[in-house]
């Protein structure tokens, strides 16, 4: 081997940096499609949505603190809970997970960018467009008020004649399209852009979690898009899909909605578990035990979650025998979830635990999510569900699951990766204050809501009378929500301050195992000048997996010093990640933005019944798609110089010219 070994030319960092940099000026800023920019935009925007949705919840808690309060009118209260749920589910959790995946997955997988960068940028603009459309409703006094699952017939034109629900349907659908686009992108990334040698068996669990989630989004979101279109057509054109009087059926909406809505719960859980699969091994210096079982459990959750949707519909009058099936299916999903949790517990048991802020949030996940999981099993029991369905017991349950399974892991991830984003650490004392306020505030807010459910308090009540025994628990719950809000605020302020003034912490403050920590913080424009060659599941803990100048091939060298302006990335095979081709990725483009604006024009036309405007939007969509597809932006693939190289370049040692 030694005779054939060539020493790699020093990577041409200047050329790589220029090639992968953004263009100057406002146009350059708008036209960026690098995954780090898009990912960070997703993260920051969704964090803003979290704060907004949280603020709405605080107003609701003020209204509900005492009986017959008059903080809001019923109109405003209905808008508050609808927007709280919609923003949290559609505009915060899913986009935040997408943002974290889009930013960190290419870094973890050893890729230079997402494989379809312009579609990636379009995904972000579609998210902003949909969220923007939804939030504009406030200027028209038509904030959606039908609840986040928008049951018909309450949401048909007959009972909700305003534009409120149209804003909701069109805005949410646009964001769904953004999620579908991002999922396709993430699946292609995971299957075709992994570093050479990173076989599926060596792929990080975080990537597995996102792969399964993306597949679920592809199966679950289109039915909701279809259902939303049916409802919008019903509202605008008077069709009868959901109208019992004309042969339709209101239950159709519930089946379509929960076919999406139940997997959605796991779509909001699996990436969180994936984040913890990065955080916990890093903080315990211990590999996850029985990795194959953990991966299998992720896949099992993804599949079984599609067999549970009826457990939101126990009270609709479906025969009891049928319900028992869905109850048992709901029980089943406990097992893979428990396997994953015990893998984390096992890593802690056999590892070296460090008390860092991300680790504390991981502990909060264990304490809170497991409780939510146990009440989840109870909620799936048919007879019990008939009593507690739509009560505050359920509100408490799903906040334990979602805060435990999504929000705490997201904060674990934000504290874990913040040093990678900025090269700085947020203030530790602020992190600890934020953690304890959030953890205690959360439990004080939601624990009493279990009891409120037993006392008969149902969801979506804008007011209640005294004498029901509810007041004391509502007072406690509202007080807790203040603590929780304060904790979140401290975190956000700590991030904002640390962005420029945090303590520098080097490239790898955690001595973590995955590839992103081999890069400088923040990562350079091109991510990897030298592509890493991976030989282990935890490449950073395995000396063989570092970027290895002596184990390289001609194409590998070429990748390190590409022709000026060519964004070159390597395409690898699906299962064993053998290099297949060098692809030139498209860079800067304003077309995704123009396409989004054209779609928005179309949607506004539909919204206000201005069909001329809608047609202008349709023409605009056509024009921008043609513009997008003009040849300059076509991906130009050519075979790798040595695609006849047998097997894994790391294994063979490469070096053939």
């Amino acid at each position, binding site marked *: 081997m030694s005779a054939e070994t060539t020493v790699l030319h020093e990577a041409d960092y200047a050329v790589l940096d220029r090639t992968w940099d953004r263009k100057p000026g406002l146009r350059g800023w708008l036209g960026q499609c690098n995954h780090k920019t898009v990912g960070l935009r997703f993260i920051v925007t969704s964090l803003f949505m979290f704060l907004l949705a949280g603020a709405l919840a605080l107003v609701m808690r003020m209204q509900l603190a005492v009986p017959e309060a008059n903080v809001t009118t019923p109109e405003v209260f209905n808008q508050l809970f609808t927007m709280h749920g919609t923003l949290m589910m559609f505009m915060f959790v899913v986009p935040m997970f997408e943002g974290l995946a889009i930013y960190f997955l290419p870094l973890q997988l050893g890729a230079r960018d997402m494989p379809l960068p312009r579609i990636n940028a379009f995904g972000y603009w579609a998210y902003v467009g949909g969220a923007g459309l939804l939030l504009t409703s406030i200027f028209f006094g038509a904030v959606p008020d039908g609840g986040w699952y928008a049951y018909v017939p309450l949401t048909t034109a007959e009972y909700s004649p305003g534009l409120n629900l149209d804003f909701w349907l069109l805005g949410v659908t646009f964001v769904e399209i953004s999620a579908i686009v991002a999922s396709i992108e993430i699946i292609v990334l995971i299957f075709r852009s992994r570093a050479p040698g990173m076989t599926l068996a060596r792929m990080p669990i975080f990537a597995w979690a996102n792969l399964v989630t993306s597949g679920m989004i592809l199966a679950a979101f289109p039915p909701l898009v279809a259902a939303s279109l049916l409802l919008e057509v019903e509202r605008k054109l008077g069709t009868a899909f959901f109208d019992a009087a004309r042969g339709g059926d209101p239950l159709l909406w519930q089946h379509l909605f929960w076919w999406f809505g139940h997997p959605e719960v796991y779509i909001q859980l699996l990436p969180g578990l994936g984040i913890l699969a990065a955080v916990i091994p890093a903080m315990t210096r211990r590999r996850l035990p029985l990795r194959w079982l953990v991966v299998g459990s992720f896949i099992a959750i993804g599949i079984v979650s599609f067999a549970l949707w009826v457990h939101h519909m126990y009270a609709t009058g479906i025969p009891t025998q049928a319900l028992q099936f869905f109850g048992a299916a709901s029980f089943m999903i406990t097992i893979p979830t428990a396997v994953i949790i*015990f893998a984390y517990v096992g890593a802690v*048991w056999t590892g070296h635990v460090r008390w860092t802020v991300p680790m504390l949030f991981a502990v909060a996940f264990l304490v809170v999510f497991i409780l939510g999981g146990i009440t989840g099993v109870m909620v799936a029991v048919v007879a019990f569900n008939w009593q507690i369905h739509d009560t505050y017991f359920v509100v408490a349950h799903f906040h334990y699951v979602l805060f435990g399974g999504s929000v705490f892991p997201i904060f674990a991830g934000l504290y874990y990766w913040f040093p990678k984003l900025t090269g700085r650490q947020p203030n530790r004392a602020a992190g600890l204050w934020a953690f304890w306020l959030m953890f205690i505030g959360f439990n004080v807010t939601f624990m009493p809501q279990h009891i409120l459910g037993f006392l008969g308090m149902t969801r979506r009540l804008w007011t209640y009378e005294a004498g029901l025994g509810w007041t004391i628990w509502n007072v406690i719950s509202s007080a807790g929500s203040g603590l929780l809000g304060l904790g979140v605020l401290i975190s956000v302020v700590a991030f904002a301050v640390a962005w420029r003034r945090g303590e520098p912490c080097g490239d790898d403050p955690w001595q973590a195992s995955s590839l992103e920590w081999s890069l400088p913080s923040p990562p350079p424009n091109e991510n990897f000048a030298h592509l890493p060659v991976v030989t282990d599941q935890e490449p950073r803990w395995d000396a063989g997996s570092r970027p290895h100048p002596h184990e390289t091939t001609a194409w590998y060298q070429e990748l390190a010093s590409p022709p000026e302006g060519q964004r070159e990335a390597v395409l690898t095979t699906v299962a064993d990640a053998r290099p297949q081709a060098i692809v030139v990725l498209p860079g800067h483009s304003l077309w995704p933005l123009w396409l989004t604006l054209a779609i928005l024009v179309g949607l506004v036309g539909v919204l206000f019944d201005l069909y001329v405007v809608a047609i202008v939007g349709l023409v605009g969509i056509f024009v921008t798609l043609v513009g997008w597809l003009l040849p300059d932006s076509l991906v130009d693939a050519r075979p790798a110089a040595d695609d006849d190289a047998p097997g894994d370049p790391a294994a063979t040692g490469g070096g053939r010219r």
Partner: protein
Amino acid sequence: MTRRAAAAALLVTLLAGCAGPEAMLDPFGPSARNTALLWWIMFGMGTAVYVVVMVLVVLAFRRGRRRPADDPALAARDEDTSPVNRRLMIFGGIVGPALVLLVLNVISVPMGMAVGDRGASAEGVEGFAEEDVVVNVTAELFWWRVEYPGRDVITANEIHIPAGEQVRVRLTSQDVIHSFWVPKLAGKIDATPGHTTELVLEADEPGRYRGRCTEFCGLAHAQMIIHVVAQERAEFDAWVEHQQQPQPQPPTERLEEGRQVFFGSSCVYCHTVDGHGPPNQIGPDLTHLASRETIAGGILPNNRGNLAGWIVDPQAQKPGNLMPGTQIAGEELDALLDYLESLE
């Protein structure tokens, strides 16, 4: 605080969590009692599981805290060096939950089936004996229309049932989806347009049981209350007989004056007394209004003051309800109230 006082305080707190007019863990019927028992079984099982898991978590962190960073086991490339991991995942992740869930399934499925027939209901009252009580409830924006097929009784927001007997409640809706829930008696079931669903209500003893609409149905959703009044059978039969009676011609001039006000005002666009009024029955039937304990969708005690306020400005009491205010004042209002209060 002494230990005994602390225990007492805890007990009081727990009990406070179980009692109240709409508390499901304070059951007064076989169905709700069955579910309350199911809850306490699950509470015991759930607490045991949570405690075991949390003990394992605490143990895990104690071990993990003690292990030094340079422990050679950490560098081991083989992920399964420690048998404790395999035990945790196999027993904690698979065997444990499978056993617990199997036991829970064996307990909960028969208890669910025992709650009784629920679900879609056939039309009509065939198959019921004459003395069986069947109640048709139509949920409307934001009140409950209550009819007794075969008995020719119609009322609102109040379901009278004989105590100790199974009563079939058949639900549907004219407008949006509502859900019917009286926590002390039974679980909830939806009232959906185009569907008829059915629920069995049984109260152990006479009493008033409060419930509400539990599916978000619009602005006044929070103020859509239902009362179930359980009575001894004889008392119930007397109530039915009373409700079947038409109102006599007003015996006094004063009441006749009130009757004139009623039929001369916009009230009759939606309400009927003895079948005089709109054919499509938009609002509650008022023939026996004064015999009901509440008005306004079950939220206000039925007294003169509330009635007057409700007639003049219903939106102040219950924002978003469909009843418009009526411009009646002074002497006319007094007469109208006298008349309405006479509708026993």
